[in-house]
């Protein structure tokens, strides 16, 4: 049967067909939809973990007792999971284990542009890289075979364009594993004390050599001979751009990007007049080809930064560009917090209080955008609290009071909690605001241990943030309504003054929350035109529902779009002239 699937949907389907029993992940764009699709197959136990390290550990546990498991994450998530990954390379698997890491060339929604292929080489784990949705499905199945045949975890690398683009896929049937999950003790393989690990390291090195040799006759590493003037080594989405831009070129398409099939590369290089590597991000293939003494052109003509497109490949090869229409510069259209978003009032207050805001990763990172302009740092998931601790270690007592860390509920549970324990333990005198909107909002509203539901939609325990903070030693824990600006200002400024660790928890849900009864919109508001003095105070919260109409009155007036307004009432609290009222 044929269907149009995204790369992520196809990987989920591939895992299903491969007989996977356990799938675990922490959501991260562009990888998120893989687990949102495995959950449709009830034969797979799918779950959101608190972070990527835990997700991989869950996958390892299932693999060690014999089941095939799938673990997915975005590129920066691999940094979190790197610790177990590197040792998993030594232990190998029992049931096949595939770790999907989704890279994000061009940083469509990420904080850096790292190339995960380096992790494959660094951790000494084979990596497959599909070039469209059909290959996403096939390579996932193949990855399980390689994993079990070579006793290794397998990395499956995608990029945003593969994860989120759709193409036609032929579906197959699920093959239920012969292997039953059961306990098999094998300490020499699964307990990585130095004595055992030294033995396994030799196994790992042999495995890489063997895979490189076997890779030469794997059909996923294929040579397409056409005109021999130009030969291109490429993989993944870059292959598609090469076929588009250089239809006549001969191509060595690598389906396995680590270890490289060196004999196949030598053979291909000998058949073409000039050899190129076309790859996104790092010169990963190029450097290794050069290291075996084969001259090749790569990053001299293709940027190390950003995503490739057919146009960029054409340009690199000096081909004429298409005629293009040029247009004048336009106002930008950046993402924005939703109307009624519970974060808006907190960021408005932090701006008013001139706080130094140590930020984190989530929707609330948008708090850095004008007019709220209330975020000063943002590095990685869970970092805001640790960074605040570092800042107060060196600031003067007066400056210390300005330091506020903000972190979402899911991010706090991901790795923020460690930072908070450290802050209490080491007496960091900063204020931490847990922006609890009951959901992992940024990646598309996934459940987490604070939301009270699992990925498979079963009711679950909801973490009590107040009790949790108290249990790890925070004496000052307060909960506020983030939509009440007076309360925000009073509580946040009081806690900022306090010379010890404070935690403030906000208690309003995300407006986009899917489950019914969690978010309730208020009645839409309207601007009473006669009362509006055109002071623009309401514009300072940057709500998409409030529009400035220059033509209305001499100074202009504000207008609220009733279709967008969720009636959170934050804007009316800013209006000194009571011009914002419930719409009649």
């Amino acid at each position, binding site marked *: 049967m*044929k269907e*149009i699937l995204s790369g992520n949907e196809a990987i989920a389907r591939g895992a299903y067909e491969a007989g996977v029993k356990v799938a675990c992940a922490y959501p991260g*764009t*562009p990888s998120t939809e893989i687990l949102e699709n495995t959950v449709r197959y009830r034969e797979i136990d799918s779950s959101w973990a608190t972070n990527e390290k835990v997700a991989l550990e869950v996958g390892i546990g299932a693999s060690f007792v014999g089941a095939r498991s799938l673990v997915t994450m975005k590129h920066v998530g691999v940094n979190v999971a790197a610790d177990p990954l590197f040792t998993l390379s030594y232990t190998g698997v029992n049931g096949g284990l595939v770790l999907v890491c989704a890279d994000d060339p061009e940083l*469509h*929604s990420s904080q850096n542009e790292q190339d995960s292929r380096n992790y494959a080489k660094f951790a000494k784990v084979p990596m497959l890289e599909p070039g*469209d949705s059909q290959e996403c499905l096939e390579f996932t199945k193949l990855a399980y075979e390689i994993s079990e045949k070579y006793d290794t975890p397998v990395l499956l690398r995608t990029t*945003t*364009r593969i994860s*989120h*683009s*759709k*193409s*036609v896929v032929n579906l197959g049937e699920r093959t239920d594993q012969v292997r039953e999950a059961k306990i098999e003790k094998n300490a020499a393989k699964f307990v990585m004390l130095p004595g055992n690990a030294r033995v396994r390291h030799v196994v790992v090195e042999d495995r890489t050599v063997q895979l490189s040799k076997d890779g030469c006759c794997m059909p996923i590493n294929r040579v397409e001979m056409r005109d021999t003037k130009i030969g291109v080594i490429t993989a993944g*989405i870059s292959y*598609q*751009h090469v*076929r*588009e*831009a250089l239809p006549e070129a001969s191509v060595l398409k690598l389906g396995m990007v680590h270890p490289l099939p060196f004999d196949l590369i030598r053979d291909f290089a000998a058949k073409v007049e000039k050899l190129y590597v076309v790859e996104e991000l790092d010169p990963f293939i190029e450097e290794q080809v050069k290291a075996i003494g084969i001259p090749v052109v790569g990053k001299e003509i293709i940027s190390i930064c950003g995503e490739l*497109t*057919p*146009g960029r490949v*054409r340009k690199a090869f000096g081909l004429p*560009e*298409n*005629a*293009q*229409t*040029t*247009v*004048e510069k*336009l*106002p*930008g*259209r*950046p*993402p*924005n*917090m*939703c109307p009624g978003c519970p974060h808006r009032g907190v960021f408005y207050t932090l701006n008013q209080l001139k706080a130094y805001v140590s930020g984190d990763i989530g*929707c609330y990172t*948008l708090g850095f*955008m004008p*007019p709220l302009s209330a975020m000063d740092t943002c590095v990685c998931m869970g970092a805001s609290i640790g960074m605040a601790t570092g800042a107060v270690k060196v600031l003067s007592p007066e400056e210390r009071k300005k330091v506020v860390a903000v972190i979402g509920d899911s991010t706090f549970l991901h790795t923020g909690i460690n930072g908070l324990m450290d802050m209490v333990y080491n007496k960091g005198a900063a204020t931490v605001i847990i922006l609890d909107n009951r959901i992992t909002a*940024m*990646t*598309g509203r996934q459940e987490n241990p604070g939301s009270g539901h699992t990925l498979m939609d079963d009711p679950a325990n909801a973490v009590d943030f107040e009790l949790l903070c108290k249990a790890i030693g925070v004496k000052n824990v307060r909960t506020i309504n983030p939509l009440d600006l007076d309360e925000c200002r009073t509580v946040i400024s009081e806690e900022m003054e306090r010379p010890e660790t404070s935690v403030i928890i906000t208690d309003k849900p995300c407006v986009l929350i899917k489950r019914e009864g969690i978010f309730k919109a208020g009645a839409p508001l309207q601007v009473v035109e006669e009362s509006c003095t055109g002071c*623009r105070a309401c*514009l300072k919260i*940057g709500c*998409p529902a*409030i*529009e*400035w109409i*220059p033509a209305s009155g001499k100074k*202009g007036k504000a207008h609220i779009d009733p279709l967008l307004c969720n009636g959170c009432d934050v804007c009316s609290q800013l209006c000194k002239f009571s011009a914002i009222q419930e719409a009649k």
Partner: protein
Amino acid sequence: MSDKVTNIVLVGVGGQGILLAAEILSETFMLAGFDVKKSEIHGMSQRGGSVVSHVRYGKEVFSPMVPEGEGDILFGFELMESYRYLSLLKPGGTVVVNDLCIAPPSVLVGQETYPADMALKIQELCPDCLLVDGQNLAIEAGNARAANTVLLGAVSKRLDIEEKYWVEAIEKMVPKKALEVNLKAFQMGRGLK
């Protein structure tokens, strides 16, 4: 079947139903027997940001991205976003655009103004331009939210694909309770000259 790949670029603002329209287009082309690739970037752009989706179909499609200057049709849901992405369209390409302005944040707060005469400027650069009153036609069809299907109808008229495949794709992709309105909206769009 010729080797030519047809390129469609869909642009608009997050929340306008662009991704669903792109899904229906892709499904239609697959049902009609073509190879199809579709590409979009979502994530941050869900929150009112600019959204672009590329759909390509033909005998065999390689890259999922429409190369700059090779778009056959620019399918716009909002005027300024349509103007912004005209560079993807080939010279002499077709524009089907919703006659609608949505102000971006800088305009909402009065820092910048929404550029004047967007529709005229698009028509000047691309004479083969159909301006569709999607909002009002959708209301006429029974639901303001079906504007994307009205536009889809207008686009369908410009592609050589049998009507039955369009209808089949809409029936598959649109939720049952909204189907009747959407089929009506599609026909209204298809009836536009």
